[in-house]
């Protein structure tokens, strides 16, 4: 019985392909999959989708499993099972402010903090849980630019190495959380097709453990 897995384009793409290869489930090249968006190998169907779309494919049952960054799951919680920390694609979600800014810890924050982010839900919830009033400006790209042109006091964004932040004269004021790639599963797939789905989960878990 074929098991389907949604894997993301973008930062986690090569890590996901690498994991599939190491687990012996499927050997696919990025070029090959990028052209077809859908590939079958043995009894595994691999679906290539945008990172933020992985939970949608899994929650609706179009894919039994999905590989997705924890940062995406923070932003769009769903009805899936989060089964395995795949231990690659590590990065942090941070509050970054301009180097020259006087903002730092919570005691220095203004009564109403303005931040730009691609993660409005996570950012809003984080400030709210700290009793800080916040105005979240939702941007779709080049978030680093927003504080430099005076749109906001700071940004909430992902960083792996911190290079992009430094290049834009931004420094980290707080860390909201750490993210790695996760294996998620559709709730009905686990119930109605337990054996084949669990078999794939076990091999991915093992391969992820080997790397760590």
């Amino acid at each position, binding site marked *: 019985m074929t098991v389907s897995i949604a894997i993301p384009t973008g930062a986690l793409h090569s890590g996901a392909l690498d994991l599939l290869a190491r687990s012996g489930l499927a050997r696919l090249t990025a070029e090959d999959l990028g052209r077809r968006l859908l590939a079958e190998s043995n009894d595994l169907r691999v679906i290539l989708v945008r990172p933020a779309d992985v939970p949608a494919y*899994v*929650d*609706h*049952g*179009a894919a039994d499993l999905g590989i997705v960054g*924890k940062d995406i799951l923070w932003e769009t*919680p*769903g*009805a*899936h*099972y*989060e*089964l*395995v*920390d795949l231990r690659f694609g590590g990065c942090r979600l941070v509050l970054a402010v301009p180097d020259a800014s006087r903002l730092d810890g919570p005691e220095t924050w203004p009564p109403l903090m303005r931040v730009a982010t691609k993660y409005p839900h996570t950012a809003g919830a984080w400030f709210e849980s700290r009793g800080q009033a916040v105005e979240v400006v939702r941007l779709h790209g080049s978030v680093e630019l927003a504080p430099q042109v005076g749109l906001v006091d700071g940004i909430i964004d992902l960083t792996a190495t911190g290079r992009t932040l430094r290049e834009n004269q931004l420094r980290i004021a707080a860390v909201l959380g750490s993210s790695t790639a*996760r294996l998620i*599963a*559709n*709730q*009905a*797939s*686990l*119930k*109605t097709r*337990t054996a084949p789905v*669990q078999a794939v989960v076990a091999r991915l878990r093992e391969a992820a453990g080997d790397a760590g």
Partner: protein
Amino acid sequence: MTAPLRPQLGNVPGFRDLLPHEAEVLRDAQESLLAEMRRWGYRHVITPLVETMDVLDLGLGVEQRRRLFKFTDARGDVLALVGERTVPVARLVAGKLRTAPLPLRLCYAGPVLSTDESRFQHRRETYQVGAELVGASGPVADAEVIALAARCLEATGIRRYQIDVGHAEFFHGIMDAVSLPEETKAAVRVALAARDFVGLEALLEDTPLKSAEHELLLKFPALRGGPEILDAAGGLVRNRRSEAALAELAKVRELLLVHGIGDVVNLDLGAIRDFEYYTGVIFEGYGPDFGRPVAQGGRYDGLLARFGRPAPATGFMVQLDLVSEMLTRMVPPRLDAAIAWTGSGLSHALRLAATLRLFGMRAVVDTEARSVDAAKDWWDAVAASNLLYCRDAGPVTWNAKGKRARSLPAEQVAARLAGGDA
């Protein structure tokens, strides 16, 4: 190109019109479900769409209360549109039916509302059909509602469904047995409710004492299978509560075999449900091609006491809109006959239609005389299986999709159609 819809002719977000085929399938499925419930002796009740918050506060959790559409009436009472229908039934059993002897078997059908759009279809209005067995505890009652749920799904025409049966006490026993500080246990419950096993593993990793129950918690998504899973789990748990739950599940499973639904039942010890609400055997029904359960239920022995009539209770509800969505794709729309006419053929047409309806067929008679060719266009437009064309006198011309036209006397057409000969 169809012109865009004028905005004021659309729906409020989260609410939608059901178009003819959808509405018919949904209503048929609802009737099939209620009819099956009545065959098992469940009496139909209709509770209002509106309840006072005082009543709903007694029965619902914080999250469920938050999602209610609330308003005040002229007297200043806070009212809400129901978000589920078990609590109203509990109010009824403890209220107007307080003198009715237990056990009581009741069933209901109706819409439920939520201010939040559902995760899947962005719906705020959905339809539920449910059954409650109040006043009976033990495996016989548990097995009855599970078997009823299975037969209900079958009655709607769904093929390839399955029922997963678990037990809330198995989980409670594990939580008693794991040696964790209270705040960690609370975090464990939150992680489990979110089905976040990565978070769960992190929580349990930090604790020094590892028991068999620790391992069981981490294996929750995989604690599923046939009767062998009971033995496997029985070998691992070391607490009375979980052991009692396993023994009860074994009895329920035996009874389900006798009910004749052994082949659709699986045991799922790792079922994750609202453990504050459920107190015993729990279950979920899955249909084909749907990423989520179409039916769910279980034992809730604590609810009735909150309304002042302590009683054990179990029940389930079927998510009717999911079932009917599944069926809408399976079942073609049905209109058996389009009857066109010309001249004095109208009287033949009306009599023929009356005969067909007598046999339970669906027949529509044209409102104006048409030529044969125009009648065929009309036939396409109404999408009927057969076109019957009535002239002044003599035989009826019978067109069926993919077949040559035939000329037959009206009574023969009626007899053949009613006999299933298309």
